């Protein structure tokens, strides 16, 4: 099923025509309503009339998270505050929070985008959807909630936490779909197994997002729960969940290009890269009313392809995320992404995909310790077997990362499980 075939299956020409018209309109509106962008464009000697179509998008200035922080809270809004019907905000772990706003039409567009993703995941009016994303300032809960209501499903707004209750209601209500972070789904999978409930629930799909995960983790969850897991992508600055999602062919994330124009740039030179090359993902919103953004740098690393998907959808597809440019650790000069560790561990088996990277600097040398949980099913009766396991993991990680790591096996289920975003890295290096 396709939620909005007219839009999702447009020809590439039609997409570009639509994007051009929307971009021109949006640039004009932003120039006249947002002082920050007007000043930026004036400094660059750029006038709204210079943007004639989508091919001119590269003339526009970039926007970063710092720009949002600097204009805290409502400085980048392009409509009067009376037009805003909702705000969300990201947690400000470093400095101020970033605040995003929505008009009534923005909320409608958001519900439309999430409905497209859910429909791709086979969710319809007969489904019962458990929303286990946080509700509140975080966009996950309400974003998924409105989309699920839009498709006509029965929505169970559980938010995060209280796993026992989540399992009870999942069983009692006959929940068919869950929306949550992949790490929480992994946690829930273990809890369901421990409670002997895997065969008692009616779950058939999961729509997971808000943090990067690997195909290995997806397969693992699908196998253990007997469900299909789909990816939903989004970021609050652009919309929240629903900017893109994947279909049953798992060919990458289909971006809703009638609302968001993706580009891939080299994060160092800031120049666009060739199609298929990995770089930093950048989005321009072309329909957002409250908070339109030019070329917002997501820090997410991925590549784009524009060929048609076997599902019939024509919009651009993003490949699996390779990590975030700011998640990247540089250890002994080598770029290391936590997601590489996860992928390597899943390939290996015998350990859970829960891990913790501890980076330190001892005698001016970077050290990497990878803490890995022994799988509950692993038969740890002999030191020799544990040592073999440790050696195997060490070799696999060294091949995957290109640097040697000290592998430390820890007891099953002792690494912190998160009900939101998982913490995978502790960097103890004191950098000057």
């Amino acid at each position, binding site marked *: 099923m396709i939620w909005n075939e007219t839009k999702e299956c447009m020809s590439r020409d039609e997409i570009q025509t639509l994007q051009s018209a929307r971009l021109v309109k949006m640039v004009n509106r932003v120039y006249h309503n947002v002082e920050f962008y007007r000043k930026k464009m004036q400094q660059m000697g750029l006038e709204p009339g210079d943007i004639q179509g989508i091919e001119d998008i590269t003339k526009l200035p970039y926007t970063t998270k710092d720009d949002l922080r600097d204009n805290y809270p409502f400085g980048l809004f392009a409509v009067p505050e009376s037009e805003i019907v909702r705000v969300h905000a990201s947690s400000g772990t470093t400095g101020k929070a970033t605040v995003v706003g929505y008009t009534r039409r923005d909320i409608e567009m958001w519900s439309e985008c999430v409905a497209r993703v859910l429909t791709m995941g086979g969710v319809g009016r007969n489904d019962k959807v458990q929303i286990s994303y946080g509700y509140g300032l975080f966009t996950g809960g309400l974003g998924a909630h409105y989309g699920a209501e839009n498709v006509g499903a029965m929505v169970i707004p559980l938010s995060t936490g209280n796993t026992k209750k989540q399992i009870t209601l999942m069983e009692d209500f006959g929940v068919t779909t869950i929306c949550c972070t992949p790490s929480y789904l992994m946690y829930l999978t273990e809890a369901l197994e421990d409670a002997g409930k895997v065969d008692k629930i009616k779950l058939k799909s999961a729509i997971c997002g808000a943090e990067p995960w690997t195909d290995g983790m997806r397969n693992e969850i699908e196998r253990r729960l007997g469900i299909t897991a789909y990816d939903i992508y989004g970021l609050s600055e652009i919309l929240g969940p629903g900017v893109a999602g994947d279909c049953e062919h798992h060919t990458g994330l289909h971006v809703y290009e009638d609302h968001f124009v993706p580009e891939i740039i080299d994060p160092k030179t800031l120049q666009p890269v060739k199609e298929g090359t990995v770089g930093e993902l950048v989005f321009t919103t072309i329909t957002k009313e409250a908070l339109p953004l030019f070329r917002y740098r997501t820090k997410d690393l991925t590549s784009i392809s524009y060929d048609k998907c076997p599902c019939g959808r024509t919009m651009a597809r993003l490949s699996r995320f390779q990590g975030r440019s700011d998640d990247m650790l540089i250890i002994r000069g080598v770029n290391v992404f936590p997601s590489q560790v996860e992928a390597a561990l899943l390939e290996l088996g015998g350990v859970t995909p829960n891990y913790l990277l501890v980076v330190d600097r001892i005698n001016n040398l970077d050290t990497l310790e990878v803490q890995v949980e022994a799988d509950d099913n692993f038969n740890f009766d002999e030191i020799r077997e544990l040592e073999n396991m440790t050696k195997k993991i060490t070799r696999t990680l060294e091949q995957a990362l290109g640097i040697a790591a000290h592998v*430390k096996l820890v007891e099953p289920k002792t690494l912190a499980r998160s009900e939101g975003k998982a913490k995978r890295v502790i960097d103890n290096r004191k950098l000057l």
Partner: protein
Amino acid sequence: MLIKQLSVFIENREGRLLEVTDVLAKHDVNIVTLSLADTSEYGILRIIVSDPEKGREVLKEAGISAKFTEVIAVQVPNKSGELQHILKVVSDAGSNIEYMYVLSTGINSSVIVKVTDTLPVIEALKKSGVTMYTAEEVYRFQA
């Protein structure tokens, strides 16, 4: 003759062993005997308890994973050559001893033995006149 031993993987951190024994004591699960094999980072605690099923269950509830391993309890009469005799029987049965530790049973010594292939070893030991304890007997021993 098959005895269910609990194998617990524990990290070498302060108090962890105590936690395990604490949980068992609280639930009236008696530790008959134990051995600890360790490296600098982790260890394997092997325990024979009065009620293996219950022991595993209460440990699991406390968040500690324990696995069952099948072992045998062999009596070693207090005479020279007895242990050597047992080792030879095991070896002749085509099995290896992976580890063994003492089970204190009064005047005679006994050992808990983990071999690669348990059933043939039990048969061979029986035939050669070596006495083994049944699971019921072992679980009932009070140190």
